[in-house]
């Protein structure tokens, strides 16, 4: 140790210096290569732990919280409107329950839903015009995992107590054996299965799912490649995922 300040290194790492001491020690750190080297070495300590894979929804949960909190406290500019949401729109009530759609039908349905949303938005002066019944609509682009080449889109339609979910994906890797692409909705990191599909010869796939209970509060949508159909919790790798807006 070359400097009396070096004695404070452990207090600094322990976060127990007061504001003034902290400033003084940071000034010391800038001048003392030995202390700085020791600090740098602590940056490698996490690799003593075994790697733990975060669940698919963690990133979205954390970043949403970070940016929300930041905006509340900073109170600078108002939060920019999220591009992925569109105002509530009127969508004709559809009577279907869980059912599989061919990619073509799904694509047409998606385009029609998007078209409705867009047209409504264009016509309406106010996003929340009183004529809109209790239907909320959201589309989101699914993000591919690092090793996955495919792309996907999800549309969520809340209408009269039901949540309809349409997922469509392209450029999928072909499945083998009993493998299926399984869609999940997650709430606070807990998943429920919401339909599965296998890709067509064109490597496209889609599924429509309708939830009539527990329709609120879902924060993440994910697609995994499961070894078989019918799993109640994901066993396979997440290939596509996105954060969604939990309904208030």
């Amino acid at each position, binding site marked *: 140790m070359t400097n009396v300040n070096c004695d404070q290194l*452990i207090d600094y790492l322990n976060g127990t210096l007061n504001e003034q001491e902290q400033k003084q020690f940071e000034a010391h750190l800038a001048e003392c290569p030995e202390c700085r080297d020791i600090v740098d070495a602590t940056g490698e300590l996490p690799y003593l732990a075994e790697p733990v894979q975060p669940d698919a929804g963690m990133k979205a949960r954390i970043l949403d919280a970070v940016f929300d909190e930041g905006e509340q406290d900073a109170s600078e500019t108002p939060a920019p409107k999220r591009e992925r949401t569109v105002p509530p729109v009127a969508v004709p009530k559809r009577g279907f329950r869980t059912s599989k759609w061919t990619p073509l039908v799904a694509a047409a349905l998606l385009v029609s839903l998007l078209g409705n949303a867009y047209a409504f938005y264009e016509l309406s002066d106010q996003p929340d015009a009183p004529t809109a019944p209790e239907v909320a609509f959201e589309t989101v682009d699914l993000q591919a995992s690092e090793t996955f080449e495919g792309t996907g889109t999800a549309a969520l339609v809340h209408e009269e107590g039901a949540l309809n979910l349409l997922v469509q994906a392209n450029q999928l890797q072909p499945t083998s054996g009993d493998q299926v692409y399984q869609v999940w909705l997650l709430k606070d990191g807990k998943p429920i299965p919401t339909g599965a599909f296998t890709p067509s010869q064109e490597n496209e796939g889609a599924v429509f799912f309708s939830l009539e209970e527990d329709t609120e509060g879902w924060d993440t949508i994910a697609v995994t490649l499961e070894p078989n159909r019918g799993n109640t919790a994901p066993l396979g790798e997440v290939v596509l995922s996105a954060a969604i807006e939990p309904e208030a």
Partner: protein
Amino acid sequence: MEKISDALLYERVKGKDKEALEELYDRYEKMLYSYLCKMTGDRDLAEEALQEVFVKVWRGIGSYDESKGKFVAWLVTMSRNSAVDLIRKQKKPSVPLDEIAEVESTDSSVEETAEWQEKSDQIHQAVRHLSEEQQKMVQLFYFKGYTHETIAEKCGIPLGTVKSRIRLALKKLKTSLQAVQEGGVLDDKREL
């Protein structure tokens, strides 16, 4: 294209660049989360601690610059201290030393990246050059969520002694780590 340095990304974060924060998050999510899981023995608590760290980064609490050493070391210090606070607030007993192995990931399908493996080999090798006492200090301070005061109390050693032992342990760790990273032979006589 060369990877943007952490320090530059942090500069952009200070200008409220969300993408820069996301990039930093992606770089260190798994590393910090794994560390926090091991320290807290609880995935939820680890996530809460990690969230606190990034809230602080975003809000510019405890501002970083390169004179304070590597960015990742700064993140690790914040992560440790967040977890220590959370463990204390929840009065959750930290993980007993002999149960730490149980925190290990049960997800065997997770493929460790080559980088993780290399870093992990290096730090494990470096730690093996510490004395048993020094290893214990690192373990208690960084992996069991103990403050130096708690260590002093539990081990019945004066606080000043604990601090200098942790410092010596970290100093030796740094020297061993540098030697391992440079592929050099460790000269134990040179140490301490």
